[in-house]
């Protein structure tokens, strides 16, 4: 045959070129499969029979696929947590207990501020429902009437003018009666709370509501209420907030209850305590609240024993006579158990205490610690939440939501909502400065509830928190037998503050205690560590193919570096051939033959990549001719091989 092919065959047979310096990709593969430690590869080569070989290829590829799949599963499940629940038995820190009277301010103290509003409310009740009988107000009636006349003679009522209460008739849509003036008003705009007819199956289809308009009166929303009680209360509260927003905090604190007044007796862990153990906390809607065990620079009290004897026992004085009839409709106190640095959201989560009752609240403490990113979406201290905390308290989800809302409120309406703290450089809303803030607030609140403000998506929960699970039980207190002496003694005790005989409906007893001193801690810890992941990787690699990281490096070396070096060499060879043909078209045909590119002899001369790879993996020792200078290494061996057998090819090669 052609001498070129002959040469090729000879070279193939005799050359020890295996490995990186293999002449072709096929040889490289063969070399790799023979020498690698990875199971399966060797079998592909050494197996006899095409079917066998095919099967081995399939086995190997399946094993590779399985490894990749399993490792992917391991990686994806890396960020999982394991939960451990521990129960400690130890002396427990007593939580902070915030106690508020449901009624924020003494009615006698605020009545000056609220005279106009109250009289107008009564007037509204009178004309709307015909409620005229106010037994407790009978004494005041004359005076009120006088003041009404004095203020109302010539001038229009203030509050009803600002936001008139309207009577809606179901029959005439879009019409409403301003009950005070009796004029019919055209109602434009949307009616927000489309009240139902459920509640009024038996009665006239009249609804009460009020209308709120934006600044330029172009956009109005009407709020109707199915029940007159709700309408009146809501309307009253609206004005009340306006009025109170203008009162400075000091004055408000003075108008509210003092600690001595609220707390008749106090007993903690078997020891007597008094008002000095409580710190004042002024809440806009609940007035003066007092927090037990939250004194600054004082150690946190703890209980040494579980049970009602060792907890906090207080008797509260709830003066029902001083209640605001329109603002609050229920009697009692509110109590909230919280962490020392937590803000008491008394209006949301407080537990009500009934008068003339003894309320026992048993607590059970559970602590939770969660792992933050990337395990879960929680925040350690709220510093990574883009909402500024307007409360002077540790971060919590609720604080974040309220802060977010308040910030949005200041942004959109220009003033802050009364029941939440003030952000820096903002004022509480009132009609003097922001005549239509109410409309803005209602709209914003609706948007907030519908999660359109984005607060719910921005705010994250806190990673660690304590919670007290409460069990409440009630008993009649004081008992019939003990009532007499108890009330007498308490009256005498409170002589300084209250100069009236205490009634049992003025008092409420509250016991707060740990049911047991077991504290449950729920801790999350990473279920996987890097070592675990690596050993699992190792397990998978070992299980399917008995391969290791070195094998992987080997694969990279062979399949990428050597592979490309061979391709590059071939390209180089082609280019050289092409160049040679151009130079001397009459050159020997072996050069131009297609198979020539496989011939290692052709490219050994100037193919540097081959050499470099040869340096990395030295060929078998017997193949080397000692003393041969490395660059000519292949050539030398070839020379010796060919000189003995095929001189002619050698000659063509050399030429």
């Amino acid at each position: 045959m052609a001498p070129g092919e002959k040469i090729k065959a000879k070279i193939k047979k005799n050359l020890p070129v295996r490995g990186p310096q293999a002449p072709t990709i096929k040889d490289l593969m063969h070399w790799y499969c023979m020498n690698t430690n990875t199971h399966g590869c060797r079998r592909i080569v050494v197996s006899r029979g095409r079917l066998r070989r095919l099967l081995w290829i399939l086995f190997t590829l399946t094993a590779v696929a399985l490894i990749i799949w399993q490792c992917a599963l391991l990686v994806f499940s890396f960020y999982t947590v394991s939960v451990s629940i521990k129960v400690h038995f130890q002396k427990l820190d007593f939580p902070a207990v915030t106690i508020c009277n449901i009624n924020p301010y003494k009615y006698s103290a605020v009545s000056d501020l609220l005279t106009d509003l109250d009289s107008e409310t009564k007037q509204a009740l009178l004309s709307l429902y015909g409620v005229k009988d106010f037994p407790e107000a009978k004494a005041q009636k004359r005076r009120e009437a006088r003041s009404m006349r004095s203020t109302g003679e010539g001038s229009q009522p203030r509050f009803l003018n600002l936001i008139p209460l309207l009577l809606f008739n179901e029959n005439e849509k879009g019409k409403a009666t301003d009950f005070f003036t009796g004029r019919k008003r055209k109602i434009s705009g949307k009616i927000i709370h489309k009240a139902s007819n459920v509640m009024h199956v038996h009665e006239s289809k009249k609804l009460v509501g009020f209308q709120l308009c934006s600044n330029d009166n172009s956009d109005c929303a009407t709020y109707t209420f199915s029940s007159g009680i709700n309408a009146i209360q809501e309307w009253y509260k609206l004005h009340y907030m306006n009025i109170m927003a203008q009162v400075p905090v000091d004055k408000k604190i003075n108008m509210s209850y003092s600690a001595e007044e609220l707390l008749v007796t106090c007993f903690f862990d078997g020891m007597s305590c008094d008002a000095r153990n409580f710190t004042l906390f002024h809440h806009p809607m609940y007035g003066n609240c007092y927090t037990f065990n939250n004194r600054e620079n004082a150690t946190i009290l703890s209980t040494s024993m579980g049970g009602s004897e060792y907890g906090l026992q207080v008797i509260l004085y709830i003066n029902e006579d001083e209640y605001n009839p329109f603002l609050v409709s229920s009697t009692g106190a509110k109590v909230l158990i919280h962490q020392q640095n937590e803000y008491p959201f008394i209006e949301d989560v407080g537990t009500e205490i009934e008068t003339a009752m003894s309320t026992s609240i048993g607590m059970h403490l559970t602590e939770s610690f969660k792992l933050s990113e990337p395990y879960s979406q929680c925040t350690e201290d709220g510093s990574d939440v883009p909402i500024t905390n307007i409360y002077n308290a540790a971060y919590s989800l609720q604080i974040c939501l309220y802060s977010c809302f308040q910030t949005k409120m200041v942004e959109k309406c220009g003033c802050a909502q009364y029941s939440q703290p003030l952000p820096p450089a903002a004022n509480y809303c009132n009609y003097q400065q922001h005549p239509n803030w109410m409309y803005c607030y209602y709209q914003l609140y609706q948007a907030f509830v519908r999660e359109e403000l984005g607060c719910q998506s921005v705010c994250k929960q806190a990673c660690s928190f304590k919670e007290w699970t409460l069990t409440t039980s009630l008993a009649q207190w004081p008992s019939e037998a003990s009532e007499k002496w108890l009330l007498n003694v308490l009256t005498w005790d409170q002589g300084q503050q209250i100069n009236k005989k205490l009634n049992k409906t003025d008092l409420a007893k509250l016991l707060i205690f740990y049911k047991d001193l077991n504290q449950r801690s729920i801790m999350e810890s990473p279920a996987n560590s890097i070592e675990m992941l690596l050993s699992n990787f190792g397990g998978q690699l070992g299980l399917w193919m008995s391969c290791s990281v070195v094998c992987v490096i080997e694969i990279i070396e062979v399949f990428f570096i050597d592979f490309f070096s061979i391709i590059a060499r071939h390209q180089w060879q082609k280019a050289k051939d092409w160049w040679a043909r151009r130079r001397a078209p009459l050159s020997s045909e072996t050069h131009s033959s297609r198979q020539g590119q496989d011939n290692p002899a052709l490219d050994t001369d100037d193919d540097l990549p081959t050499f470099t790879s040869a340096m990395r993996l030295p060929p078998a020792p017997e193949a080397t001719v000692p003393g041969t200078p490395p660059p000519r290494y292949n050539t030398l061996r070839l020379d010796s091989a060919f000189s003995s057998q095929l001189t002619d090819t050698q000659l063509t090669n050399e030429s």
Partner: protein
Amino acid sequence: MRARSGAPPFYLHADDAGPHQSPEPNLDLAPHLPNSPKGSMKGTKFKEQDPCPSQSMQGLGKGDKREEQGLGPEPSVPPQPTEEEEALIEFHRSYRELFQFFCNNTTIHGAIRLVCSKHNRMKTAFWAVLWLCTFGVMYWQFALLFAEYFSYPVSLNINLNSDKLVFPAVTVCTLNPYRYTEIKEELEELDRITEQTLFDLYKYNSSYTLKAGARRRSTRNLRSALPHPLQRLHAPPPPYPARAARSSSSSVRDNNPQVDRKDWKIGFQLCNQNKSDCFYQTYSSGVDAVREWYRFHYINILSRLPDTSPSLEEEALGNFIFTCRFNQAPCNQANYSQFHHPMYGNCYTFNNKNNSNLWMSSMPGVNNGLSLTLRTEQNDFIPLLSTVTGARVMVHGQDEPAFMDDGGFNLRPGVETSISMRKEALDSLGGNYGDCTENGSDVPVKNLYPSKYTQQVCIHSCFQENMIKKCGCAYIFYPKPKGVEFCDYRKQSSWGYCYYKLQGAFSLDSLGCFSKCRKPCSVTNYKLSAGYSRWPSVKSQDWIFEMLSLQNNYTINNKRNGVAKLNIFFKELNYKTNSESPSVTMVTLLSNLGSQWSLWFGSSVLSVVEMAELIFDLLVITVLMLLHRFRSRYWSPGRGARGAREVASTPASSFPSRFCPHPTSPLPSLPQQGTAPSLALTAPPPAYATLGPCAHPLDSAVPGPSACALGEP
């Protein structure tokens, strides 16, 4: 290349196939080369070289070869002679060859030393011990790992979610099933007898009895009209027919252990169909006894009432619920549905699944929940049935029925009850990991409720099923399937006996309801805690009562006791999800197995495949050798002719037609290196024994350099 020395018996045979082949001198590779270059020539060359097999086998061989070329790493352009002549599947010719091949190429670390170190016995023994030790340790570890996996351990996950929550369904009941005035006719007889009984037993004179005092004598005989009269029993009751028992039926065998054991005082007698067996349902307290007895009769009366008699629909929503607000907005018709409970009266379920758009809570707190003002006046209550005043409220999931018996909360009149909720979800793993059911479809109890599966639903359905099966009628408090009627002693005289028996069996779980009804895999529950405050306050009560009266066209006479207020809200929006996940998954199990395997053996799954291949090869070689021996015994003479005969017989039989030797290597003088098979026996898959073309061996097992070096001299 390789000498064929030391070949097994059939080797000779293989050798004698030689003459059929193309000329023997093809030992050198060169003569084959001319044929090879063109890919299209493969087939012809194949045929040329292949003297023995039939046409069909050729086709198979070709196809497979191409497939392999597509898959394999070898490039197809320059067909090498070695690849070209390889058969579909080849076998070693002897055990020794096979083992040699295996020892050279295996990847099982210990095995190489054990099997392949033949020269040193001590070494072999040492390796055998070592191998056994590691093998033992590995399987011990495997056993531990598998035991752990198949115990299906679960690990607990606690997730805290803080999303907008769907407000649960809230059911509020009036605690009075019917207006007394409206059901009076039905209850008249029962009430009279009850009064009479009370008078007889306790000398209690109610106003009713006094009023009806004139009629007392006439009602006395009415008493016997009702079965199961209430009786005072002696304590302890006499072992033999009590006086009281005798009065009702003389044939009572009062041997029921319940009567013997307990010394209750008041009770009523229940007998089975033919009065052969009776027992006393007894109570220690007369109040309980009278109530239970009254209730029992009341059930019977109820079952006689038509299903939906509008006259008995006690109150419209407006009469019971004065105000209703959710999230500061008033409720409307679409937010609630109404149903009637025979004991708890009219119940209104807010925000259940047919609510047009479910209520959502995006903020915690009182202002973001449901707020109801309820009428709790009880001037028209059934005196003997309703001993509780107020209202009953229950919080449950949207598609769960309201079991007012099981999880209710009573509201006191004159008090504002604030119920704060905390949601908790529990997801457990089903299947092998735990005993729970996804949707109840695999529970052998038919769900009688039009709601989703819960354990309570299942237990009630199970009880009802048993009731219908055993007593023939349905218990009125549970829904009935079609075609069954509610129990009434006018129709089923002994259902009381049956019911109380069943109730006892049910409590002891001899009905199997508790074991049959598995818990659902995902459960949501709401933890409630309540706070109370007096409502309305003294200062505000006047205008509030006034307004309520005006608004509802109805005077609240009893003032404070006539109203109650209820707030239900979420205490916090964080809700806890306790979920389970398998603590050992398949992936970790495999990883652990792999770690152990690698640690002790260093082999892999592919090594096992190698072993399997070895065993397969061994079997095939054994079969081939046996066949050969068998054949050589029968066809001993005429070797040359035999080959031709075999060709003819090839397609049909599974006989080994022949064994073809590989073309001899170009260097026959070389000593055998024992590293690779020089000759391969080939057989196509359809019949292994029918041997395919003889392929040229690829001396791939021989490391190149050594061959070269040896070849040089």
